[in-house]
């Protein structure tokens, strides 16, 4: 079986000249945070839809750094969700069951929707529990 790229021990060095897309992304996050506070408006940014030079995504990740909350979701493979050093800014990375990344997002929200229990799952759980009583 092919070794996933994440398991190959390589370090991508950022280019000396990058795309310049990190700063606009940080500005977008800043506006999104203001909108969250002002009007409760949440924002989601699809990281994979933006052109980044090798290493730039990591630079963005490092800039946002990590905050107080880290969670792992197990549904159709793992999802790593953590709050960055800026409260309300969440970094979300979805993986499939082979632990290959299938999507990366920045969500500016009070709490990511995926962390909340879903009413349909609560209903199904209630039915299962009732069946055991």
């Amino acid at each position, binding site marked *: 079986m092919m070794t996933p*790229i994440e398991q190959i021990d390589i370090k991508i060095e950022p280019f000396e000249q990058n795309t310049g897309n990190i700063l606009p992304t940080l500005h977008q996050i800043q506006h999104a945070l203001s909108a969250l506070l002002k009007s409760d408006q949440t924002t989601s940014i699809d990281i994979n839809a933006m*052109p980044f030079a*090798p290493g*730039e995504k990591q630079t963005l990740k490092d800039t946002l750094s990590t905050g107080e909350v880290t969670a792992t979701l197990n549904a159709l493979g793992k999802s790593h969700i953590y709050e960055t050093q800026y409260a309300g800014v969440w970094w979300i990375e979805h993986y*499939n069951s082979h632990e290959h990344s299938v999507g990366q*997002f920045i969500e500016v929200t009070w709490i990511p929707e995926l962390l909340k229990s879903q009413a349909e*799952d609560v209903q199904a759980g209630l039915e299962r529990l009732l069946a055991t009583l």
Partner: protein
Amino acid sequence: MSTRKPSSSPAPGSVGEYLRAQGISRRGFLKFCTATASMMALSPAFVPRLVEALEKAPRPSVIWLSFQECTGCTESLTRSHAPTVEGLIFDAISLDYHHTLQAASGEAAELAREEAMKENWGKYVLVVDGSIPLGNPGFSTIAGISNVDMLMDTAKGAAAIVSVGTCAAYGGLPQADPNPTGAVSVQDLIKDKPIINVPGCPPIPVVITGVLAHFLAFGLPELDELNRPKVFYGQNIHDRCYRRPFYERGQFAETFDDEGAKKGWCLYKLGCKGPTTYNACATTKWNQGASFPIESGHGCLGCSEPRFWDGGSFYKALSVPTGDLGQTAGYALAAGGAVGIAAGLLARQKKAQAVKDHETVTVNDLHKGEHS
């Protein structure tokens, strides 16, 4: 304090019901829709719309025909990291005929195709990979049926046709000068059905499934003048390339091992066809989003553009198609006559009706729906 109620059950026979039957939780379904929206190049704001649409969308019957091809397109899709989002989308369709993947062969396989056509007449999606030889019907046959006969017969009851790969979309490698088999594309032969071209040699797997997901959830995607979905083929590689700033500054690699190449400068002078190639490689990338040819230090070959094999050297800066186009143009013209379908008024009317039945949905339409 807010209360939350479970949403209504997914429609019977729908994609949502299928996924729930696989034991996928609502949370898993939301994750699936988030990744699918990203795959479809839709803004994350459309995820709730996608959730709603997939809960109701019926599982479509899909008939997949492979003609003059190398199986690279099927490999691209099936070798993608299943079981995952693409895998689930692929599983969520009812793939009723695919002679490379199915266990049945010969008459039994053809019977399955005929039954699927009969049961889903006017509703099934026909996926084609490979070009169709008109030089001699015996060049490529399946169960003794020539490619052109099988295509014309199967296309009759299709709701839409997806031409996967550059061969099906434009003729591709088999059509390269001097086109020894008289290869033509699907759209050279079929004039009365909506056709979605998903070119690439091979196409990016998530683009193939993204197109199927779009059809499932929202109907026909908006197409460009070459019938390619704009969400994936709306921008050229060059405009989305992370090396674009080097182009702007006039910093080019002159050879594959000079200082410019080592510093990751623009590959335009080494023959990169990024400026004239429309595809999603620069953002969607390949191998689980790991990289794409330019990121690996090689210029784009332009494989999602018509006649890319005849564009001269891959290593010469932006060349134009060479060779005798007359022969291929002749086959394309003969295609219309041979099967009795000229691009006449009737065909155009039928196509217009078929498109109307499966209305094209643009990102703007989705946005409008969001606020309606």
